């Protein structure tokens, strides 16, 4: 929606299609940013700091896991650990979040009992719990799983709760006049009606899950991309480290794009209020 009137177009003899123009602009900006990074780091920072050229050179080696000294975490092994943990956390967190969110949205007592806890845990940075969890579970995968599941649970739960609360009352009245049972109302009406909220919560959850997984790996020193990054940073292998950072960034982008696509495909009736 480009509603801002642009200055009257000058008469042109030749114009590229708008899409090509935009793509060209984006590529040009990207190149400019990379050049800026390269120049600034060369000029101001020590030699070991990652630059686009060194990162590009490191990509094939890291992905093929060549020249990995013994005792060093491997890239794909670490990525697998982190991605699997994130997936497990998403499954647990989203399932629990939907259930608790629906319960809080439909039962007022549950709402009053739990609202305070859910919103307080949602507001607080869950990573504050990582050190305590080390005391509970040891330096163990359970720390990461708990952090990641909580990170997914809280935004999903709050969003489903919001969506269920905003369910138009007459939906429920109609259903009840047809003798719908409570589970029909919960899962047949309230849940589909709050799907857009669920998806919004899902997107928040993805961000929190990735951040939580990496921080848990940093602090609890678990195998995964977090410790891969930390190890490479400490051994002055910054270009290799940046490959892992890029991988995480692309993972975030890909999941968000998938969520967008799912919104458009599955919920064509839902438009973001823009």
């Amino acid at each position, binding site marked *: *929606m*480009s*509603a*801002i*009137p*642009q200055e009257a177009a000058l008469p042109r003899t030749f114009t590229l299609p708008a899409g090509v123009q*935009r793509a060209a*602009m*984006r590529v*040009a900006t*990207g190149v400019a*940013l990379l050049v800026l990074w390269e120049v600034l780091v060369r000029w101001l920072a*020590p030699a*070991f*700091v*990652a630059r686009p050229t060194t990162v590009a050179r490191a990509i094939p080696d890291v992905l093929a896991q060549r020249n990995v000294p013994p005792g060093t975490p491997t890239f794909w092994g670490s990525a697998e650990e982190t991605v699997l943990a994130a997936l497990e956390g998403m499954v647990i967190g989203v399932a629990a979040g939907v259930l608790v969110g629906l319960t809080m949205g*439909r039962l*007022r*007592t549950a709402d*009053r*009992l*739990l609202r*305070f806890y859910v*919103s*307080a845990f949602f*507001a*607080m*940075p869950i*990573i*504050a*719990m*990582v*050190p*305590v969890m*080390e*005391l*509970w579970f040891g330096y163990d995968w359970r720390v990461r799983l708990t952090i990641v599941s909580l990170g997914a649970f809280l935004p999903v739960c709050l969003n489903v709760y919001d969506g269920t609360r905003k369910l138009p009352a007459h939906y*429920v*009245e109609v259903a009840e006049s047809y003798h719908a049972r409570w589970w029909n109302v919960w899962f047949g009406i309230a849940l589909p009606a709050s799907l857009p909220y669920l998806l919004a919560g899902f997107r928040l959850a993805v*961000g929190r899950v*990735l*951040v939580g997984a*990496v*921080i848990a790996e*940093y*602090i609890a020193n678990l195998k995964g991309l*977090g410790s891969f*990054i930390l190890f490479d*940073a*400490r051994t002055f292998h*910054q270009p290799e*480290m940046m490959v*892992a*950072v890029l991988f*995480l*960034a692309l993972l*975030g982008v890909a*999941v*968000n794009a998938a969520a967008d696509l799912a919104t458009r495909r599955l919920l064509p009736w839902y438009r973001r209020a*823009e």
Partner: protein
Amino acid sequence: MSTVQVAEPKPRLIVPQSVRGAGVSLLGLAVGAGIWELIGRRTQASSFAPFSKTMAALWGMTTSGELPHALESSLQLFGAGLGFAILVGFFLGLLLARIRVLRTGLEPYIAMLYATPMVALIPFILSLFGFEFRAKVIVVTLFGLWPILINTLEGARSVNAELLEVARSYRSSEPKLWWHVIIPYTLPYTMTGVRQGIARSLVGMLASEFLLAASGLGNLILTYTQRFDTAHVLAAVLTITLLATALMAVGRAIENYFARWKAGV
């Protein structure tokens, strides 16, 4: 929930809904504290402390000045980082909205940075800026910046064309156009971003306190964990929870205040 409630037979003791609601909420808190106390008494002191001991630790740290000191240090970091995030996010967002070339060029990269887990960049920031206050502020800013920037951009782009046309037809100059039309129109959007940025900046604050030079509340948690003193750790975590809840409430209040003149709502 159900709004259609037909005449109740005989109202005995009428307790207003709000009072009952508050009562149930308080009961929830009391039950939570009770469970906490019970679990704490049945586990080793090195893994979980009961509610009463945590409260005692909280009181002890408050009176000794340890907690206020840590809180102050953390809030300084948080405030500086979020402040920069708001400044940069707001002005960059406005600029991008007004300058089409910049916007089209940078949009995909901003979206990518928004989706990047910023914690992954902390070691990189460490190597560039060290681990002192400056580096930590940068981390907090990088956490909080993106929602503010993106919301501002979205808001400034959705300014009504008619508003701009009217302003233009009265020969409003570009600075006046910004000051009287675009900025007031955009502020509510920015504040939505600020609310999201507050939550993210808090994560950034703790992450930088854990991973860069330990300070503030993060340092409290780390040192007491090393001493297996769970009562003090839980007291610090509780403080962070209360702080986060308060900051979120402030964020929501600011957002609602600005939403009063949000168009079309």
